[in-house]
């Protein structure tokens, strides 16, 4: 009996398919199987021995049955795995989705900037791209024959109507419509009669305005520094005096050059700084032009979206934005 068990264990070890297992089962537990044969020998034994022998055979039988069952499970697992393995495919082949679209880098930049200012509580307003001279210049404290008009070469529709040269007219439009406090940004296209590697006759600006009681130049510094850090990461920010007819005091904002980290390079003309924003406290004349009460004041700012996008994505030619080469656009599908 002991020998049979050993023999069985040897035999089952090498079995790896159902057919062989069936044969093995027949060989040991079948009608003429080894174990069945043993049962037949029981009748030859005495009562005492019968009991003992019978018990041992039954043990052997159930041992073999269990072993076969276990093997059966193993084989089933193996067969299943094998058939799945046979179905395996090249997972490196590309998907069926072949057209990946993309949002234009200018729009991406506007969305990012909008979301930062929205999180600070600013609204978003839109203005007109074709504006009256009055809104684009005069109400912004830029009378006719003011030298500041030289700063912006203007496209004219007729003597009184222009393509807006900046998004600032929206300031006046909104203030004429709404009572203070107001707090909004306004993105959009602007136009200047100018074209070279860094200038495009059409480009995008984002205007910002915050008017309330008791707003300080220090608030302007705080809000814009925070915005620039959120957009560009942890960069040094500096404010230096400048001039815009519609703000006083006025400032230009520089960030430490993100290309050379302030060491000086071609992009920053070796100054270590990049000019990114113009801003200032809204000029009292502008507030008077929209009949705001005297106890209100605030700040305004304007930034060039292309400049921000160029710095953020390392784009070196402004023309790329407007050629709409699909090879360029598809790079912004992220």
């Amino acid at each position: 009996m002991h020998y049979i068990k050993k023999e069985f264990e040897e035999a089952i070890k090498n079995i790896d398919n159902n057919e062989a297992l069936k044969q093995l089962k027949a060989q040991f537990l079948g009608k003429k199987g080894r174990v069945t044969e043993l049962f037949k020998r029981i009748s030859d034994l005495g009562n005492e021995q019968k009991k003992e022998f019978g018990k041992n055979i039954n043990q052997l039988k159930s041992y073999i049955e269990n072993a076969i069952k276990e093997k059966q499970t193993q084989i089933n697992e193996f067969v299943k795995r094998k058939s799945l393995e046979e179905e395996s495919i090249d997972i490196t082949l590309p998907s069926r989705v072949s057209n990946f679209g993309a949002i234009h880098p200018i729009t991406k930049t506007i969305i990012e900037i909008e979301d930062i200012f929205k999180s600070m509580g600013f609204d978003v307003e839109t203005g007109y791209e074709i504006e009256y001279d009055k809104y684009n210049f005069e109400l912004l404290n830029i009378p006719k024959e003011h030298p500041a008009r030289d700063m912006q070469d203007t496209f004219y529709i007729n003597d009184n109507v222009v393509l807006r040269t900046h998004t600032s007219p929206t300031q006046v439009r909104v203030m004429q419509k709404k009572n203070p406090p107001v707090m909004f940004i306004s993105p959009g296209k602007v136009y200047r009669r100018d074209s070279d590697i860094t200038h495009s006759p059409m480009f995008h600006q984002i205007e910002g305005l915050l008017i309330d009681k008791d707003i300080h130049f220090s608030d302007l510094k705080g809000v814009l520094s925070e915005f620039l850090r959120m957009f560009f990461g942890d960069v040094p920010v500096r404010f230096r005096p400048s001039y815009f007819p519609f703000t006083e005091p006025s400032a230009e904002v520089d960030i430490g050059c993100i290309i050379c980290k302030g060491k000086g390079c071609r992009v920053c003309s070796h100054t270590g700084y990049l000019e990114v924003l113009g801003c200032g406290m809204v000029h009292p004349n502008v507030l008077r032009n929209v009949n705001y009460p005297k106890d209100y004041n605030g700040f305004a700012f304007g930034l060039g979206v292309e400049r921000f996008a160029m710095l953020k994505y390392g784009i070196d030619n402004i023309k790329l934005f407007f050629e709409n080469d699909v090879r360029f656009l598809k790079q912004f599908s992220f």
Partner: protein
Amino acid sequence: MRVSYRWLKEFVDIDISAEELANKITMAGLEVDSVDKIETYKSIVGEILEIQEKGSLYLTKVDVGDSVLNIATADKTIKIGDKFPVVKAGGVIKNDVKIEKRKFGDFVSEGMMLSAAELGLEDSSSGLFRLDSSFKNGTNLSDIEEFDDYLIEIEFTPNRADALSILGVARDVRALLKKDIKFPEDSFSVISDKNINNVISVEIQNYDACPRYTLFVADVTVKESPFFIRSRLLKSGIRPINNIVDITNYVLMAFGQPMHAFDLNRLNEKIVVRNASKGEKILALDGREYELDENMLIIADSKEPIAIAGVMGGENFSVMDDTKTIALESAFFDPVSVRLTARKLKLHTDASHRFERGVDPNLCIKANHYALNLLEKYADAKIYDGHIDAKKDEFKEKTFDVSFENVNRLLGTNFDKKEMLEVLDYLNFKPKELNDNTFSVSVPTYRFDIEMEADIAEEVARCIGYDKVPSTFPVVQTSFKPKKRIDEIKRQLTKTLADYGLCEAVNYAFIDSNKLKLFNKNENEFIYLKNPLIEGQDVMRTTLVCGLLDNLTFNINKNAKSVALFEIGRVFFKDNDYSKELDKLGVVLWGVESFNWHNKERFYDFYDLKGVSEMVEKAFNLKFMYERSNQAFLHPGRSADLLLGGNNIGFIGELHPDIYDLYDIKFDKKVRVLIAEIDLNAIADYSSKIKMYEKLPKLPTVVRDLAIVVDKEVKASNIQDVIESFDSVYDVVLFDMYDKLEDSSIKSLAFRIVLKNDEKTFTDQEIDKIMDKIFSALKEKFNANLRG
């Protein structure tokens, strides 16, 4: 403007380097673009000992201290004893040009004498740069004071007229470094036997345009200016001409006062400051004739214009080599008047630039005195007794009161009173403390930009430093306003279309009117630019399609095989003298839709484009009506107008084959250009963010297919509508369409219909009954037959 560091130091003590100074004034509002040390290319002083003429060349012997060199030059003006910068053979000058020995017959030129251009002081020179005769032969140029200098390029904002001179920059430096201004010596002697009033008089006819006119007269000798004047003018970007003109320019650069010297003997009787009469002409110093009008101020004699006031002198009345006596003008002209004239004549000069922005009216005499001092020294001037100072009023300083508290509140600072007053004192505002909270300021007459308290706040802040202003965060009590629907739509649509596989394009809003006419026959709606930059950008777009088709051409030329673009932007329609702006979505699809290992190559067609409009419907909870379009630029059989609430809000379709050529696109039967445009303002008006959900069927639904044959002209959407009108129909999908049947007038359509019943489960008979009913309705309405 280029400022010489050395010259600046004559006006104010500077104890910091040029770079440090540049940083300081930049941070105070005078933005420095660059600081460059003057390069001398290791040149040395050489004196001409001998000159031998040979053809167009002059072969010279030049004493360079330790040796005598043979040098050839082409400059005709050289004389024995003249000194020039010399670079020996082997040296290198501007743009890495190497100086080599050159042979002219037996003469071997062993070096080169330099012009100002070769030293990098100007763009081009007409001759060599003559040095002062006192310089020792062989001296390194870099050891000569005027060459040991830095040029500081400053970009001035238009408000800072006061700073457009060495003196002006020095005044800011003074306030930053807390030093004193040193004015140059300006005394001179007069000859008593000649009096100005005997030779000339001045009459101002328009005091508004010319509030002040001063004049001196002197006999002079016209010759070359001394070295320091010529080199400083060159450093300032002004070409030296002769001593008289140079000195007027020198004073202009030093003080910011434009001056003009007339040749007195060429003038008739007197000087009249008046408006020109229409059609009057003047030959100006630039050699061009200008036609004047009655709004332009001129300086005239008793006969004709002799100068365009504040802009440019007349050629025939200016200083020439034979000039013996000059009338020296220093005046104050009204900024707007000068600007109007300069702009109309398209004539921008150093003088007009300054007058337009504002020149100190109290500077006229001082500038004249300085010029006379120099003329006496460098033009042998004999100055006539007396001068003319024509003006109506004195030019008084504006005064107003400022509150310490207001300044600090505007800035958000806590600057102390002493600090503020000190800064303003250094800026010459003569601040006077009136009481605890108030002080008065007197605005210097050169500060045209200071009018109110806010201006004083900026002066204080810029001189103490913007970096001394803290950063704070305002708390604003604003009410939250609902987002504008159009803005939401634009942002959502951008994302949706990018996800659908289209790339967003951004195009110029001005386009070619000839192309626009293909898409819009109504030229009355066009808004033309009065001054387009180029011909092909002369009109504001009324459709986005033109720009997108240009993009398509551009991409095809770059060998693109698949172009799918959309643009969300404004279009512009004429509305009387103004415009109406609308937001539109434009789409162009062309080329390969899919080409990969799963499917065979497929090209974009009408139904891909329809996917875009259906997506708009889904995204904004709308339903468009699709009607055959009769737009001339669309394929008549493969295009549709989109209707919403009965209004035409856009189109989708294939570009008409006639238009391909005009965009340089080859027409290909398989590869079509598809364009669409949808009015987003209409979408905003009709779309709703609120939608009631439809209850789900309570019991399991049943699916049945129905295949029918109908006349080709029957619209599939009408059939679908009829099927959907049955209460038991939950959903319908058209899953097959075949129109290549033997009978070419018919097509077969197959629908999968989902049926529901909320009461009880359908029996087969009930289902058959419903399907029969549906079919009967289709038969009746569309003459449909079951597909055999």
